[in-house]
């Protein structure tokens, strides 16, 4: 943010003739004035009534959330037996859904932290919504480990709290690492998201017309006045948080993959899991961002801020990570053969040809084939088609976790202990309920908080770079690149 206001010389100066003037890319469309951005974003929050579609959507999603609460109460009151988890598949949809939601939670931090450190300015229009989506996905994910332990009232045993039993978590267990990885991730994501919100909340406070809104937004704006000192501290803190969050993008899903890789179940015990899981997580996270941003920008009239260029960039990330995931599938198969372990080889053949072949081929089609359509510019810039592909990717990534968790457990070393996992209606309704919770939270976010980072978008507007008007010669004086200075 704001820290790189000078004209930037393009790194690949070799491809550009020296006399050519580098023009700052236009990252938002429409009215480019600072006030227009504030108005466009705040109007969504300040409109007396949201669009009718918002009411319809939140009615559906809130009903599903209620169903989720019902399912969870039923589970706690009755026991984990209401799910389909049973011998030999003791990790069923609960773990599948946990990994699915944690994976989705990865796009937010990638966009907010890594793209920020890499000075990818286009992130400013989408980072707020992506970070919010991250938090809501973590809520859905974090619920599963808590409720799947059975006796939820002793779930605090997951944490190292001194107690009269002298019982202590096993620090050699990746399941414990997972508790810390996910809770750290949730905390840092929340802080990052909230800190970015503070200047925008102050904007909403100052524009508020009712005392209630002024008080509420004022409370959360933490007394922000927009002084130069505030901004200086804000930007420094934001940078530090971005640096802290960056390793988390890689660590969280690596640790989630350890839940499997550290065990000795064939099909789980592989060293490729951490990078393969991280790539898959970013893949699914970006797919979810596109899936919800396309309707959100249409619904709330933010097409000028979240432009086709933004969506196209995200689709390119989906294409890249989707290809990585495809490569990981191929590598797994190759190593299963090349490693020469009979159980490993059987597991992979069983995945592709066994009783769960239907799930495996859904996964291959959705994760490997579907994103390849994004090589075509007309597909990756068409809202309908990109949402279609992204929904397929989400379905595929759910099936990836299903294939990993269930096929390996259902047929491991001992053929006499093989089985076939069937979910119960409670499993299915709980999962649908988490979708409801996710969308409910997102819809509330869209209506009550600035969906686009107002202050950050302003830094990429022409008004924020007034000195660009000096032209190239003027800019060269501040330029950091020797090529530019020698002109």
């Amino acid at each position, binding site marked *: 943010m704001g820290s790189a206001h000078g004209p930037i010389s393009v790194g690949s100066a070799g491809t550009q003739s020296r006399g050519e003037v580098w023009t700052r890319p236009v990252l938002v469309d429409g009215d480019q004035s600072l006030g227009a951005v504030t108005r466009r974003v705040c109007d969504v929050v300040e409109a007396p009534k949201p669009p009718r579609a918002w009411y319809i959507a939140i009615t559906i999603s809130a009903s599903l959330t209620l169903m989720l609460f019902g399912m969870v109460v039923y589970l706690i009151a009755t026991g984990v037996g209401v799910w389909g988890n049973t011998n030999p598949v003791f990790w069923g949809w609960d773990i599948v859904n946990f990994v699915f939601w944690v994976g989705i939670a990865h796009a937010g931090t990638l966009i907010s932290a890594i793209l920020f450190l890499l000075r990818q300015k286009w992130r400013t229009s989408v980072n707020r919504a992506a970070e919010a989506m991250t938090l809501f996905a973590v809520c859905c994910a974090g619920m599963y480990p808590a409720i799947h332990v059975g006796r939820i009232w002793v779930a605090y045993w997951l944490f190292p709290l001194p107690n009269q*039993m002298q019982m202590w978590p096993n620090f050699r267990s990746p399941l414990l690492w997972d508790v810390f990885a996910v809770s750290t991730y949730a905390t840092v994501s929340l802080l990052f998201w909230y800190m970015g919100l503070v200047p925008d909340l102050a904007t909403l406070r100052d524009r508020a017309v009712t005392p209630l809104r*002024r008080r509420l937004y004022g409370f959360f704006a933490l*007394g922000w006045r927009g002084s130069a000192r505030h901004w200086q501290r804000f930007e420094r803190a934001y940078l530090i948080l971005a640096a802290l969050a960056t390793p988390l993008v890689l660590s969280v899903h690596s640790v989630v993959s350890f839940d499997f890789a550290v065990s000795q179940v064939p099909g789980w015990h592989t060293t490729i899991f951490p990078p393969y899981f991280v790539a898959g997580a970013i893949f699914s996270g970006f797919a979810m961002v596109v899936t919800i941003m396309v309707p959100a920008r249409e619904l709330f009239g933010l097409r000028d801020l979240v432009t086709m260029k933004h969506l196209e960039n995200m689709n390119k990330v989906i294409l890249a990570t989707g290809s990585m995931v495809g490569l990981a599938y191929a590598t797994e198969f190759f190593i299963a053969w090349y490693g020469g372990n009979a159980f490993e080889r059987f597991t992979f053949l069983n995945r592709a040809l066994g009783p769960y072949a239907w799930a495996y081929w859904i996964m291959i089609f959705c994760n490997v084939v579907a994103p390849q359509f994004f090589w075509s510019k007309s597909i990756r810039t068409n809202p309908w088609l990109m949402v279609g592909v992204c929904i397929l990717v989400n379905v595929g990534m759910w099936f990836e976790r299903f294939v990993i968790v269930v096929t390996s457990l259902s047929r491991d070393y001992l053929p006499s202990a093989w089985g076939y996992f069937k979910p119960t209606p409670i499993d299915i309704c709980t999962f649908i309920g988490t979708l409801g919770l996710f969308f409910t939270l997102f819809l509330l976010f869209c209506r009550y908080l600035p969906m686009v980072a107002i202050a950050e978008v302003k830094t990429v507007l022409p008004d924020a770079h007034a000195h660009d008007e000096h032209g190239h010669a003027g800019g060269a004086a501040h330029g950091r690149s020797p090529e530019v200075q020698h002109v």
Partner: protein
Amino acid sequence: MKPGPSNNVFPRWLNRLRIVLGAGAAFGGVYVVTLFAYGASPKTLNVGFAPEQPVAFSHALHAGELALDCRYCHTTVELGARAAVPPTETCMNCHARIRTQSEALAPIVASWTTGEPVHWKRVHDLPDYVYFDHSAHVTRGVGCVTCHGRIDTMDRVRQEQPLSMGWCLDCHRDPTPNLRPPQFATSMEWQPDKPARELGAELARARNIRPSTDCSTCHR
């Protein structure tokens, strides 16, 4: 954004409230931790539990003054998981002839005549999900007094030790201070003739005493 009246959405006195709230949160945190660490501890909740029994039976008299061995009444303690509470008949072995007219003995006599057992109140009560075996401990040299205290000085039996899981584990992790030659298991006054830990280590070595701390040792 200009600093103006619209920025001051809250009155000035809230600044002081902030300090009060911060101090309250800090104090509240300390209070809750202390409450749980001490208030909810078995040491606080369970130690000293001494319910009134239906019979005014005095261990101080029988086990102390008269020096009856624990096993005279609690017969199963070396053989089984439970240390049996004696039936009325055990009392009547002596009291058929001794102090038959005593007021304190009246409930025992009543029980003897009607055949209705005495409803003793349980003092040392582990949760149902804990498997504890008296014989395993007594026959390997953990004295009665180690867990039950000086029963021979108690008129009415009270719980001396917390009997918490952490308390069990302390000894399972290092039993040496609590081991004695098994023939002295029921003695209330036995003292080691050298440092207890040293003697305990010798006994543990000689008898291969290596208590397990697996979950399934006690939770079966």
